[in-house]
C-alpha cells in the first residue's frame, strides 16, 4: 500500500501537482488516468523519489519515505519495479542483459545460472523468448516496452509502477500486457500503479482509479463507477472518443 498525502510539486515556480491525496491499495491494479500534461508522470516520479516534492507525505506501507534511512531506501529500491514511459532500456546492453541487470545488482554471490533461468522465465511471460541476444535498437517499440516490463518484474517487486505500459502496442498485445500486469499483481500480492490513456485498460483492470486534472485529483473510484458517474470532468475525458460517445448514448437510451 502506498499513501500520498497533500502532495505538492512544481517546476520553476509553476505548480504541477496541487495537493494530491490518494491511497494505492495492495493486491489491486491502481490506475492513474488524465490528460497529457496533467502531472501523472510527475506524481509517479515523486513516489519513486526521483523528484522531491515541495510539500506532502508519501508513505510506503505506513512509513513516510522522507524518514527512510539510506539503507532502508536501498532495501526499498530492491522491491520496486518501474516501467518508464519510453521503456528506458539500457541501449548498450542486450535484451537479456537488460532483464538480468536488476538481478545482478541485487543478488549476492554467484547465482548466474538461477538468474539466467529467471530471465528466460519472465521473457517468456512477455512473449519475447528468442530475442535474448538482440540489442534494444534492433527490436520494435512494442517489444522494447515488453522487455521493460520483464525487467521491472524480474526481481519479484513489492511495488510495481508502470508509466503507460501499453501505449504504442496493438490492441491484442495491449490486452495481453494488461492481463499480465493484473495477474502478477495478484500472484505476487503487490501494489501496482499504472498510468494509462487507454480506456480499454480502464475497463479491464481499473480496480481503483485516480483521475488527475491539471494537477488536482478530480475524481476517484473504480471501473464500475467510471462509466456511470455524471461528474462532467470525468465524462468529458472518458467519452472524448466518438466510439465511447456512441456507447454512452446507447447506455443512456437504455439499449
Amino acid at each position, binding site marked *: 500500500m502506498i499513501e500520498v498525502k497533500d502532495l505538492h510539486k512544481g517546476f520553476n515556480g509553476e505548480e504541477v501537482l496541487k495537493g494530491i491525496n490518494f491511497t494505492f491499495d495492495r493486491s489491486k491494479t491502481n490506475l492513474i488516468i488524465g490528460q497529457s500534461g496533467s502531472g501523472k508522470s510527475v506524481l509517479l516520479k515523486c513516489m519513486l523519489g*526521483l523528484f522531491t516534492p515541495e510539500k506532502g507525505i508519501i508513505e510506503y506501507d505506513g512509513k513516510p519515505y522522507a524518514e527512510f534511512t539510506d539503507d532502508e531506501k536501498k532495501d526499498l*529500491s530492491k522491491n520496486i519495479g518501474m516501467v518508464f514511459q519510453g521503456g528506458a532500456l*539500457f541501449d548498450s546492453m542486450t535484451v537479456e542483459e537488460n532483464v538480468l541487470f536488476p538481478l545482478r545488482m541485487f543478488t549476492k554471490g554467484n547465482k548466474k545460472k538461477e538468474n539466467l533461468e529467471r530471465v528466460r522465465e519472465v521473457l517468456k511471460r512477455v512473449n519475447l523468448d528468442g530475442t535474448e541476444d538482440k540489442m534494444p535498437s534492433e527490436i520494435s517499440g512494442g517489444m522494447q516496452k515488453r522487455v521493460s516490463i520483464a525487467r521491472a518484474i524480474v526481481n519479484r517487486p513489492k511495488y510495481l509502477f508502470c508509466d503507460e505500459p501499453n501505449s504504442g502496442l496493438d490492441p491484442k498485445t495491449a490486452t495481453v500486457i494488461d492481463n499480465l500486469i493484473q495477474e502478477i499483481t495478484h500472484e505476487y500480492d503487490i501494489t501496482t500503479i499504472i498510468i494509462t490513456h487507454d480506456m480499454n485498460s480502464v475497463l479491464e483492470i481499473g480496480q481503483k482509479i485516480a483521475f488527475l486534472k491539471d494537477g488536482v485529483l478530480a475524481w476517484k473510484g473504480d471501473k464500475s463507477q467510471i462509466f456511470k458517474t455524471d461528474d462532467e470532468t470525468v465524462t468529458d475525458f472518458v467519452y472524448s472518443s466518438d466510439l465511447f460517445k456512441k456507447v454512452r448514448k446507447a447506455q443512456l437510451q437504455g439499449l
Partner: protein
Amino acid sequence: MNYLHSIGEYFLMLKGTFHRMTKGSVLRGLILKELDDLIIGSMGIVSFLSFFIGAVVALQTALNLNNPLIPKSLVAFAARQSIILEFAPTFISIIMAGKVGSYITSSIGSMNVTEQIDALEVMGINSLNYLVFPKIVAMMFYPFVIAISMFLGILGAYTAAVFGGFVAPDLFVQGLQDDFVPFQLVYAFIKTFLFAFILATVPAYHGYYMKGGALEVGEASTTAFVWTSVVIIITNYIVTQLLLS
C-alpha cells in the same frame, strides 16, 4: 552567476561520484568497457597524429635552420622539447576533448534524455558513480597514451630529419640527449594526469546535467568540447607557471 552555479554543480557531481559505490563485479566490467572505448579506441588516431606532427616539427626546424653556425642536432633538440612539453600532452588532449569528450557527453546525455539514468536511480544505484567513476578510472591510463604519443612523435621527427637527408643519424641521437632535464618529463606527466581527469569529468558533467531531447544532446557535446578545451588550456598555463617558472 551562472558560471558560479555550474562550477559548484561540477564539484557536487565529483563528490557524488565517489560515494555509494556500485557493486564491485559490475564496476569492474564497466571499467574494462571504458578502457576499451576511451583508451584502446584512441590509440589509432593518437599514433597517427603524433607521428606526423613530430615529422612536421622536425621538417620545419630543419628547413628554417640556414645558419651554418647552429648545429644540425638542434632539429632533434627542438623536436624533443616541443613534443614532450606541449604537443603530446596538450595538443593531443585537445584532440581527445573532441573524440573522448563528445563520446562521453553524448553517451551520458542520451541516457539522460531517455530516462535510463532515472532507471538506474530507481534500482537504488548511484548513477553518478555508475556512469562517471569508471570513466575516471579508465582515463587514469591516459598517460600511457601520451607516452606512446611522445615516442611516436620523436620517431616521426627522426624519420623526417634523417630519411629526409637533413640530419645525420648520430647527430640526431646526440641532439635528443642534449640538455635533457628529467623534471620536464615529470612536469609533462603531471599535467597529463590533470588533463585525463578533466577529459573524463567535464564532458560527463555536460551530459549528466543537460535537459531536453536528442537535439540538446548534440548541443551539449559541442559545449562540452569547447569547455573541456578551455579548461585544459587554462590548467596548462597554471601548471606551467607553477612547475617550470
